[in-house]
């Protein structure tokens, strides 16, 4: 193990609270605190900075899902958790690229995270499904669905944006779009 990269570290429970409150500032600090560690791991193990970015962002998503699922218990330091997830993700990627992985050069302790990874893989699968389903949906359905369900816009706004004569027409359109999405998502 080589020297670790040090920086001022926010307290773990501060971060968890911030995640629950969707605090952008906490995300910022979390990102800037732990990204160098992951960059170091990936760069020293046959990766580049883009790989590091992907792996790290995925690990943050794992963390967010874990925290927001409610029954979150941190059995280790947050740093160790993130490192373990990234290490695991990177190993998987190296294997997928069928590069010979001998020993990863490690920079921190790590813990087994099988359960979290399993959950994450399931969520990841569903994310990809949804992404594909929305893609197949096409315009204008995709935007209507996104505007209504993701951006929480009112039907009034949406009907104006798309030039529907009244909100009821927009609602009918939304209904059709949703039925199609349901069909694509659950059938794929």
């Amino acid at each position, binding site marked *: 193990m080589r020297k670790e990269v040090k920086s001022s570290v926010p307290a773990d429970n501060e971060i968890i609270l911030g995640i629950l409150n969707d605090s952008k500032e906490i995300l910022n600090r979390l990102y800037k605190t732990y990204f*160098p560690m992951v960059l*170091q791991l990936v760069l020293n193990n046959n990766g580049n900075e883009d790989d590091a970015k992907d792996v790290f962002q995925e690990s943050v*998503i794992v963390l967010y899902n874990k925290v927001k699922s409610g029954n979150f218990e941190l059995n280790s330091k947050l740093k160790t958790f993130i490192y373990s997830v990234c290490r695991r993700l990177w190993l998987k990627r190296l294997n997928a690229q069928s590069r010979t992985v001998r020993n990863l050069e490690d920079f921190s302790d790590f813990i087994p995270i099988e359960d979290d990874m399993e959950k994450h893989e399931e969520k990841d699968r*569903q994310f990809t499904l*949804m992404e594909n389903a929305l893609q197949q949906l096409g315009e204008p359905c995709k935007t209507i669905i996104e505007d209504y*369900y993701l951006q929480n816009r009112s039907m009034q706004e949406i009907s104006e944006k798309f030039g529907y004569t009244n909100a009821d027409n927009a609602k*009918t359109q939304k209904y059709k779009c*949703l039925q199609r999405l349901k069909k694509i998502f659950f059938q794929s």
Partner: protein
Amino acid sequence: MNKDTEITNLIDAYLRGELSPAELAAFQQKRSGDPAVDLQVVEHENLVGHLNEYGNRVRLTSEMNAIHEEIEIEVLKREVKPELPVIYRMWNKYRVSTAIAATVAMIAVFGTLFSTGYFSQAISTNYTQMRRELNSIKRSQNALIKNINGKPVRGPVNPGQFGGTGFALSANGYVVTNYHVIKDADSVYVQNSQGEAFKVRQVYTDPVYDIAILQIIDPDFKLASLPYTFKKSAADVGQSVYTIGFPRDDQVYGEGYVSSRNGFAGDTVAYQVSIPVNPGNSGGPLLDNKGNVVGIINGKQKFADGAAFAIKSNYVLASIDAIPQDSLENKLVLGKRNLLTGLSRQDQIKKLEPYIFMVKVY
């Protein structure tokens, strides 16, 4: 709008919490009253849940990308992974391949050396000791002779495994030969030119000088007094010498000259002699013109012409002196008078004949 659209919009409003208390109560009632509607609500909620998760992730990723833009990657890269000099990078990259290549090379080299018997050869591979390995051809010949003559061959029927030459030290049955001729022997016999074999015991061996002194066990064995003496001083280079030995079953005469004061690889115990010798000559006496023993033939250099070696006679004398007197049954008296001086070579050889033995080792 049809009924399904209405219900969907109702569920959306419910999920968003946009229903008034009265509408909510009506919705709840409708849901509990109609299982089809309830199923629709559950399905809808499920889909919206997946949609939300998708949306959250997309939002989180875009937020992170924004943060990522702020990071100065190049600075950070230098910090977490200092550039190593080229040589280190090459080493890091190729060290495993290098190790494998080196291992293969080593296995190849040592494997070849091992399989060609390099390790099992003695260090002085081009030095051979002149003892003779008696082969099966001779065995069959002996058997043949026995059959033709119809009389028993004296001595052991089984021919020896190895053979060499020895010569008498004294009239009462002491014989000297090379240590390497009789080493590892079960039993040793000497056979004179008449074909008479006598069992001998080992009186003294000196592996360093390659000298062995044997004694014929038969108490009645007696020779006439020795015609030769041992030369105490060193022989001169160029001096002409001769030897008689048993490279085969008959005595063979060979003549040559002392070609160097020292033996193989500068060995001071021996002379180098230019003389034709063959396996079986080992232990034979090396005599000068006057009939003095100047050495004992013990080996020759492989791949070199006329480079034989003989132990210097003064080491033989030293060995005799080193024998504990208690271990001798009879006194060992060397010949004091030289009866060969002045004789022609043929007469010398005739006189020498009974004193030179074939040594057979079993």
